[in-house]
């Protein structure tokens, strides 16, 4: 079966309509990163992966495990919410401040201040993976 490298795929897609190219990237290209839920329920189960288009896509969920949503947090990390109930959607500094409403400048100032005192709980592992607030992220390859 003929194969195509990521660089060849990029060359091919660069000539297409950007929206269609993003669609093909998200469906054809290999995953960039994987996320594992480290809760007691999930016990390190892989719940989703980031595709080459930057989208986080959940695995086929089980009843109690699966990626429900993601969010770019103000501390620079990606937050996750798992079907098991575990969540790092808000950082400890954002907790109670960031809601469904767009934040005010005052709220952001408070988040900034609290980030200094109460940063995210980050553990860097020997295998290169990083656990942020209970979710382990494994980088599989760099984004092409």
């Amino acid at each position: 079966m003929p194969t195509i490298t990521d660089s060849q795929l990029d060359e091919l897609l660069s000539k297409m309509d950007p929206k269609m190219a993003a669609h093909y990237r998200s469906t054809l290209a290999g995953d960039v990163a994987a996320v594992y839920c480290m809760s007691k329920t999930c016990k390190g189960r892989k719940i989703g992966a980031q595709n080459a288009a930057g989208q986080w896509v959940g695995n086929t969920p089980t009843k109690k495990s699966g990626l429900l949503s993601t969010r770019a947090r103000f501390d620079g990390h990606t937050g996750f919410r798992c079907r098991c109930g575990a969540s790092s959607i808000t950082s400890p500094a954002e907790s109670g401040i960031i809601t469904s409403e767009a934040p005010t400048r005052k709220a952001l100032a408070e988040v900034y201040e609290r980030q200094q005192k109460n940063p995210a709980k980050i553990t860097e592992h020997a295998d290169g993976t990083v656990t942020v607030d209970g979710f382990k992220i494994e980088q599989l390859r760099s984004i092409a």
Partner: protein
Amino acid sequence: MALDYLPSPGWAVIYGETPSATRWSELGDNDDALATGAGIDDLAIINRHIGPGAVTANETTGIWWEELARTTVSVAGDLITLTPITAKKYIRIIAVLKATGGTIDSRIRFNNDSGNNYAYNSLYSNSGTPTFDPGILQAGINGEAFTLVSGGSVLIDIGGQNHSGVYKQFVGGSISDTVTAASTAPVPYTIYAKWASTAQITRVDVVNNGTGDFAIGSEVIVLGHD
């Protein structure tokens, strides 16, 4: 696939959160269920959706009477008022009046008009022989053949036209009874009445001229249709 119910996801998203494909799918299912109407819960239709004035004639093709107003007596008294009432070309008044503390002798008035601008011809029977009983220059439309003693009740049901520019005409009647056994027939009362006013009815009052009160639980409903 449209659901026959709206799933209660029990989740909300916060600022900047991106739901997964599964959750987007749930939202899509909800949209489909709402579009077909299948997802509207039985308890989702509450009083304000169907209450007085909420449903117009244009939305009720094939449905006739619309409830325009309703008053249920919570404190015994001599006056039951229904206002404001949306003016419709046809009107129907249904009243259940219960007597307490003495007799009731009801009159129906419109637009707070207590002048002698009402007239009627009525037909009733108390002993098998029907009797015509006209009334002119009255201060209201009579509700029943005889005053009712405490404990008795009357059901009034009269309908009429409420067109602007002409006098209002009504036809209907009532049936009244004291608390008696089935061996006693109730008193029938048929009435043909008019209100000498060209204004459309926007208020209905039921007034007691008897010695007692309309008891708690007495109720007057006004229906209408254009």
